């Protein structure tokens, strides 16, 4: 699955996806932990030293993620369907809280949403093979005029 970071295709992902069973098998690795596992194992995970990431979707408790931002270097936001716009607001709020780590979109992520996602604060995208093509990276810059402030630039057009 192609991974785009800062508008470029990245060959390999330094993050390892784990679940409840595999978490213990990689004690040193930088891991992406599903939200449920994160919620259940909070104390151990937060006390550890290794690079930590959480994957969350719109149905899960975003406040728990917000409360632990210092310990997270990546937040993965899942889009179960392309119509689910909650992740856009999640990213926006993360950036507003001062989160400077990576915000990665996963799930139903494709060409026509990448620019909006970037504006909301995402800087990384996992795109399925069938939705990825050479043209995908050319989406950035399709629309260069932005009226509203957003995470990429909080200033609306009238303040720029």
């Amino acid at each position: 699955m192609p991974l785009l970071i800062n508008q470029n295709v990245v060959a390999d992902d330094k993050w390892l996806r784990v679940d409840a069973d595999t978490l213990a098998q990689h004690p040193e690795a930088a891991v992406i932990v599903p939200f449920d596992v994160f919620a259940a194992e909070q104390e151990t995970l937060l006390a550890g030293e290794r690079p930590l990431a959480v994957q969350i979707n719109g149905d899960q408790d975003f406040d728990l993620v917000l409360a632990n931002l210092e310990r997270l270097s990546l937040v993965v936001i899942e889009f179960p369907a392309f119509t689910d716009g909650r992740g856009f607001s999640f990213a926006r709020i993360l950036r507003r809280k001062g989160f400077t780590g990576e915000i990665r979109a996963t799930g139903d992520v494709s060409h026509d949403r990448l620019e909006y996602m970037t504006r909301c604060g995402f800087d990384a995208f996992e795109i399925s093979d069938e939705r990825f093509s050479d043209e995908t990276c050319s989406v950035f810059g399709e629309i260069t005029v932005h009226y509203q402030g957003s995470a990429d630039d909080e200033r609306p057009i009238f303040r720029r």
Partner: protein
Amino acid sequence: MYQYNEQDQNLVNQRVEQYRDQTRRFLAGEIPDDEFRGLRLMNGLYIQRFAPMLRVAVPYGLMNSVQVRKLAHIARTYDKNYAHFTTRTNLQFNWPKLEEVPDILAELAEVQMHAIQTSGNCLRNTTTDHFAGILKDEVEDSRPWCEIIRQWTTLHPEFAYLPRKFKIAVTGSSEDRAASQVHDIGLHLVKNDAGEVGFEVLVGGGLGRTPMIGKVIHKFLPKHDLLTYLEAILRVYNLNGRRDNKYKARIKILVDALGIDKFRELVDAEWAEIRGGEMHLTDSEIERIKGFFAPHPYSTDAVNGVAALESKLAEDADFAAWYERNTREHKVDGYRAVIVSLKPYLKAPGDITDVQLDVVADLADKYNFGEIRSTHDQNLVLAHVQAGDLFALWQVMAEHNLARPNIGTLTDMIVCPGFDFCSLANAHTLNVADQINQKFDDLDYLHDIGDIKLNMSGCINACAHHHVAHIGILGVDRKGEDFYQITLGGSSREDASLGKVIGKAVPQADVADTIEKVLQVYVEQREEEERFIDTVRRIGLTPFKERVYAPVN
């Protein structure tokens, strides 16, 4: 009116190319159907019963003659020589070809028009009072505020995938001609005790399956806070609106479920984070936008035309009848606002031909500073016509079937296209509108009945606002046959209320007769000068029910 600068123009141009590319990728099989659906809807393209339907944005109903001529050209070149104005003051083309839509959009962009966010689950076109800027009692012209909102909503990255569509209406006077209380957000320009202008904010109104009147969330929002407050409401809705059931996804359901006080708390908490931030409006921006809506260069001689007008009114009864119903007072002496009736006899309400569009554009150039407005009840307005020009204007309009003197009367109906065009319809509407037209063609009778609002929708989606009509008609399907449910007592105005169903749905053949019975009760029971709606409110539904459902012997 607002004029695009280079950036505005770049945006619509880039959007055309973006959509052209999306269409190309869709036709090449690179975008799945359901995803393209979302993309095309955000660009106003539905796939309907016979063909796609393209909804062109008319921000707050304001157009100039160049734009209207372009719409005529599009109707002629890409469609079947007509178009349709909607309750949202937009314009629909019923027969464009999917492959040609990018070309249509490119033509629209040439005249500063587009179809951005005219459909789909995003922030829609903001609507307002079609008499904005010309009223004596107005707190402030609402249109600059609509333009400020238009810019904020356009391609808003965070709110492009909301739980459901989202509509905002703004009004500037104590009268409400924008149905603001049945919008997701209604904004009323008001003055506080200190004489400052701000907004009363309503939230959670809407029609459709679960009609609701909006609730006051803020009594006086300072005007510089407009965008941050809207943003706070939208963020709370985006995060908390239901996404499991599209019928329960509108903000009205969320507000109702939480209660307005709890909802306000959430909004206030969010607002506290952003209130003083970058989206806080600046004086210079407000002034810049207001500058586009400065009063037209009205002639001080206009009052001189009044004498000529009066003699014409005395001579010509048809002209006088039209003047009486289809023109309104203007704050500048010697001027009148003219309503162009798109409700001619036996034609689909809201339809307009390419020829008529051109005629209206010419008249606007000649008599109205080149300005044309569309109204939420599917008519057009030429808002600043000199008294002395009215007769000549009327003659041209009459010749082109645009001057039926029926504004505000029973035949000035809002009617959705229903089964003839809409794939969601349960019943026909246009033939029932014809039936009503045939039954109530007598002008004296219509004028005697006076102000009355009749709206008809072909299904529960309520595109024609039937819930808030004095007489509402809703098409329902009974085993493959068209039936119609009648409601009485609705209003979309400042006294907003939802109509109540009078009883079981009537078969198609009986609709006009049923309305006749309802009107008989009114005529018998009304007190001096009492409007239909006031009679209904005073005497209740029972007398109407009794008459309509009286056993036939």
